[in-house]
């Protein structure tokens, strides 16, 4: 089914920039892939990798900054009339009944009132919502609301059904059953839909459902791997070949520690060269991960750690990245292993941990720079704008703020410096006045 003749969607060198001039940032860079007739494609990656942006470009909700999107060989202009979306947040109109929420999509296509009612009822029946036609969305559970979302999206008989993390706002059981029902409809060919595009950050979900997984990474958002999933449906989550595939996708998503770890550190903000971004990991996530690893016994399967910790992927991966950056663990082939420093950290008292942490982050140019700047002024205090201004030369305004937030979160924990919330100033504490290790 992979031949070029039945390509439905074709992405050619798609990039997307936000902002203008100096503030311009690249959200998506040079993405190329196809979606074929009959295919279920999953777009997988951490938050901020541009997967939702990509979905919005494919449906025509926003235009790409560069590149071209072809639909059935024709360049896409405006909203793609053959596509619909099932939204993460359901996007139901709270003031319309279940039935009207479905009908409203048909009304926009000038379907006659009687035909509208008939079709809406048929679809609500199909997703198992008969009896709830006159209920309002707020009277329904999350799972049932999303069923309305599916009914509405399917009512207009789209060729391309786009699912924007449709299960992530649901409880585990509802998500599970809704996934099952969708796969049943899809596999039985009961739908007029020709292809499905699923955006997700849940690796297992993607492996269970998709024919092909496109793995994305962020900064800038780009495709890092395409993994075909040639497993027969229905797939069992505990089946060995499914687990092996999950492991493989995990390795692709998390990446590996580069052998030369100097590369990782980068230069200080304001200097030449690229500043290494601090991973978006709060202290408690880092500490939690370290303790867990110590208990598990040094080396563990990333995918199992993530699952057992019950962390979302976009929360878990930055924590992994952080412990790696601080030299407390290394990544290899989908496994994570504590270094001896990491073991010490996990085993010791809070005070000693703070010391280790302080020592480690003092090696990072970001923290060297903050300390040096604070020491330069006699009051040893500087407004946060000072740091933001410099950071904004390397990062987007939003990211610069986030970077400073994490720097403050880490620096406070390590007692390198303090932050005055009322005056928005960073200042040195007496502990922080020790000499810098050069």
């Amino acid at each position, binding site marked *: 089914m992979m031949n070029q003749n039945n390509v439905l969607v074709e992405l050619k060198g798609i990039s997307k920039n936000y902002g203008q001039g100096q503030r311009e940032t690249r959200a998506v860079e040079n993405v190329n892939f196809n979606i074929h007739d009959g295919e279920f494609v999953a777009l997988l990656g951490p938050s901020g990798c541009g997967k939702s942006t990509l979905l919005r470009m494919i449906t025509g909700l926003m235009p790409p900054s560069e590149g071209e999107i072809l639909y059935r060989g024709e360049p896409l202009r405006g909203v793609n009339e053959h596509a619909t979306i099932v939204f993460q947040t359901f996007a139901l109109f709270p*003031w319309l009944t279940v039935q009207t929420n479905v009908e409203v999509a048909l009304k926009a296509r000038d379907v006659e009132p009687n035909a509208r009612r008939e079709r809406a009822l048929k679809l609500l029946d199909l997703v198992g919502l008969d009896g709830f036609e006159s209920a309002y969305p707020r009277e329904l559970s999350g799972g049932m609301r999303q069923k309305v979302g599916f009914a509405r999206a399917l009512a207009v008989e789209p060729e391309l059904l786009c699912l924007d993390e449709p299960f992530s706002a649901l409880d585990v059981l509802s998500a599970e059953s809704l996934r099952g029902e969708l796969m049943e409809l899809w596999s039985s060919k009961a739908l007029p839909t020709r292809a499905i595009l699923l955006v997700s950050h849940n690796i297992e979900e993607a492996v269970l459902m998709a024919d092909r997984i496109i793995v994305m990474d962020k900064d800038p958002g780009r495709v890092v791997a395409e993994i075909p999933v040639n497993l027969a449906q229905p797939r069992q989550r505990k089946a060995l070949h499914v687990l092996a595939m999950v492991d493989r996708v995990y390795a692709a998503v998390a990446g590996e520690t580069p052998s030369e770890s100097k590369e990782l550190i980068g230069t200080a903000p304001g200097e030449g060269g690229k500043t290494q971004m601090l991973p978006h990991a709060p202290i408690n996530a880092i500490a939690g991960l370290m303790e867990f690893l110590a208990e598990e016994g040094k080396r563990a399967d990333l995918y199992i750690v993530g699952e057992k910790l019950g962390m979302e992927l976009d929360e878990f991966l930055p924590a992994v990245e952080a412990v790696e950056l601080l030299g407390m663990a290394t990544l290899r082939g989908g496994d994570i292993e504590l270094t001896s420093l990491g073991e010490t950290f996990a085993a010791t008292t809070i005070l000693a941990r703070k010391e280790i942490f302080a020592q480690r982050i003092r090696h990072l140019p970001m923290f060297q720079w903050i300390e040096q700047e604070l020491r330069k002024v006699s009051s040893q205090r500087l407004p946060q704008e000072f740091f933001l201004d410099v950071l904004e030369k390397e990062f987007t305004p939003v990211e610069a703020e986030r970077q400073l937030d994490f720097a403050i979160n880490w620096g406070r924990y390590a007692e390198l410096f303090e932050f005055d919330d009322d005056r928005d100033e960073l200042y040195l504490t007496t502990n922080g006045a020790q000499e810098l290790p050069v």
Partner: protein
Amino acid sequence: MRRRILTPSVIPGPALNVSDALIVVGVLALLAFGIFLALGAPAEVQGPEINLSPAYLPWYATFSLTRMFVAYVLSILFTLGVASAAARNQTAEKIILPILDILQSVPILSFLPVVVLSLTALLPENFALELGAVILIFTSQVWNLTFSFYQSLKTSPTDLGEASTIFRFNPWQRFRTLGLPFGAIPLVWNSMMSWAGGWFFLMAAETFTVGERDYRLPGLGSYLQSAADQANIGAILWGLVALIGIIIVLDQFIWRPLLAWADRFKVEMVESDDPPTAWFYDVWQRARVAKWWRQSVVNPLTERFDQRVAQSLRAREENASAANVSKNRIVRWVLLALVAGFLLWGAYSALLLLARVTPTEWSQIAIGAGASFLRVLVALTIALIWTVPVGVAIGMNPRLARVLQPIVQVTASVPATALFPVIVLMLIQSGGGLNLAAILLMLLGTQWYLLFNIIAGAAAIPRDLVYTAETLGLRGWERWRTMILPAIFPYLITGMITAAGGCWNATIVAEYVTFGGETYYATGLGAEIARATAAGNYPMLFGATLTMILIVVAFNRLFWRRLYRIAEERYRMD
């Protein structure tokens, strides 16, 4: 997320800029143009006698109600059109928002005589008077409606917007399915405020004197004014009874049912514990007529209307591609040139008028501005002192709220202007003089904005925070300092902004009062404006109005906007 229903009319952006100056000049140009026209108005006018017999009251009440209704319909149309344009088109937004912001700071009453006089120069007198009254009431109702609806449109949930796009709603369907429902609750609340604002200016809209010209329209407002002029206490009381009766009837049969009905338009995905209820709405819901009305009249009609609109929109879309772009550009340049010409002319005539204000008059204006400023300050302080504890008590106690809220709402709708004569009579006789009485009048006019906002703020304090404070044993001042004051702060600022603007506007009626054929006035900017109007002294009217506009705009931009930003950044709960 909880939505603020009474949104403040604070627009984001830099404090003051060139476009603000241009708009002020534009407003002044309009005023100057009006004065120019007004000079051609009939030299002497004697208004019709208002009969003070209570038997005439139903007629008068009907007339006034009709004027209010017409002005309100115009306000709603203006709101839907202008707010939608501002929300949809960035260019329009850049032009419309600052204009609205300045316009709402303009003292309405300064403009009335000029509006009416210029209209009488162009139109038959009676029609001009009616139109003038409607315009005045319109300007007292429209701004908060427009701002609130604009804010609703701008803050409507992104996912619903995307759903509307992906399912290819046409602009009308999008407006009807998303924009209008999402804005409905704030629109109903603000409509209630707008009607209160309209009643406030009703007396001034229906009767006023400019020099030798005495204009009067038959209505409830002119009835009350005439009763006051003749010091006929019995008639004043009859008029008040009629007015309060109307307000209660509107509250029971229109606003409460509307609020109960609009509850369906909230975006929260949970059932509220305490939805608004209205007996009349319940009756209506149960009535067969209502069902028939919906199914056989409303639904088919809206269906057909939607189809028509969809068809014409599609037809227009097809034609749009063929439209002549260069022709549009010429039209735009011509319009721009006309506006620029008008601005230049306005600036020139404004200067001419200002040059005729004598130094003595300028010093009067300056002293008046100082006195009025003090009065605004005192009125706001008094309002704060009583509304904060009372508002917090009502807001944090649902049982108290259920009993008091409706009473407060009706009380707030009773226009202070109707009570002025009685109060003035009492205060002047007790020796306080209008200089002090004016403060009370201003207070009566504006304290409600504060009270409503504080109630809303206190009611929005999350329950878990209240429980935490309880378990921590926070009491007295500690409880206020750590929980209540920070929580209500954004609401407090919102209320203060509206109240302060209202105070300045109220100075014109509060500092200059006629009662029993006597005229009382205090030292103040409002009094200067009112006196200049009565004397037909246009340069003075012009200078004093300009001063008031500048003071209000400067305060909004330099003081309130900063406080508002702090409130939003630091004390937001959601």
